[in-house]
């Protein structure tokens, strides 16, 4: 059967100068096409943020581009989702979704390096590949998902 609706979202995370990270998220569906780019510091502060909207059914979305500036200087940490949807989502949920994709990208970019080093080693010695071992390696991930949760964890 033919699809009635499709959406594509792409995320690219680049290593940039001075240990910063450039994150680009692009989305295209039947009603919207746009892009958001952020530059995040090593300490996860949003240093720069820009966006562009090529297609939108609501004029409010294009108007909301100026709101991106309000995210500048914010730190990617607890409460950021509420902040993004509070500031941008009220005007344009699409744009808020792209900002959130960039935020996820900044976090994933910071995680991918250590994971790329540790995981292949652990896969090679399966008997050592325990939940305790990966939690010890990445303690900040504890309780974040099934792989990083021990039976005794709440």
């Amino acid at each position, binding site marked *: 059967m033919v699809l009635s609706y499709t959406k594509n979202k792409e995320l690219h995370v680049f290593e940039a100068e001075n240990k910063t990270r450039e994150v680009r998220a692009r989305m295209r569906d039947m009603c919207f096409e746009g892009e958001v780019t952020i530059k995040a510091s090593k300490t996860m502060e949003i240093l720069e943020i820009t966006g562009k909207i090529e297609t939108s059914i609501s004029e409010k979305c294009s108007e909301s581009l100026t709101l991106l500036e309000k995210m500048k200087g914010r730190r990617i940490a607890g409460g950021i989702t509420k902040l993004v949807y509070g500031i941008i989502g009220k005007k344009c949920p699409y744009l808020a979704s792209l900002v959130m994709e960039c935020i996820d990208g900044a976090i994933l*970019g910071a995680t991918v390096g250590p994971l790329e080093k540790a995981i292949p080693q652990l896969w090679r010695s399966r008997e050592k590949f325990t939940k305790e071992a990966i939690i010890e390696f990445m303690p900040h991930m504890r309780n974040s998902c099934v792989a990083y949760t021990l039976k005794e964890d709440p």
Partner: protein
Amino acid sequence: MLQFCRTKFVGFEQESEEILKIFGTLDDTLYAMQIEMKLQLPELVITSITGKMRRFTTPFCEEAQNFLKNAEGLKIEPGFQSQVKKLIGRPGCQHLGNLINECCESIIPALLYMKYKELKEKDPNVLMSEVFGQLKATYPQMESFCTTFSHLNEM
């Protein structure tokens, strides 16, 4: 230098007047997974969901598939994203939860587009306000959490 790359795809298929079939795939540097769910219309309730994790980082990740069934019965209404994180993301897999939310967030634009296409076939000059009006009559719950709807209301 490129450090990480992720692509997500969401597709909707109108199985019948009452059932919408939704497909989602996520493929990135670390993970690859797919889901398929059915949504009951006009209630916007997830009636079934299946999925498969094809690439992951740990031998424990696949256990997350068992949490997918937690989404059955979930209604697409304000706050559904937090529910997905709570029921599937946190106990199972954040990326699987992210993919479910990606699919569910597309429901309004998908229904809007499908209604627009349907009405445009009858009237090539159909206005978005007309599309919105008809959609609102079928899905009154949408207006409570969709800013796009409130914007269209002003058009």
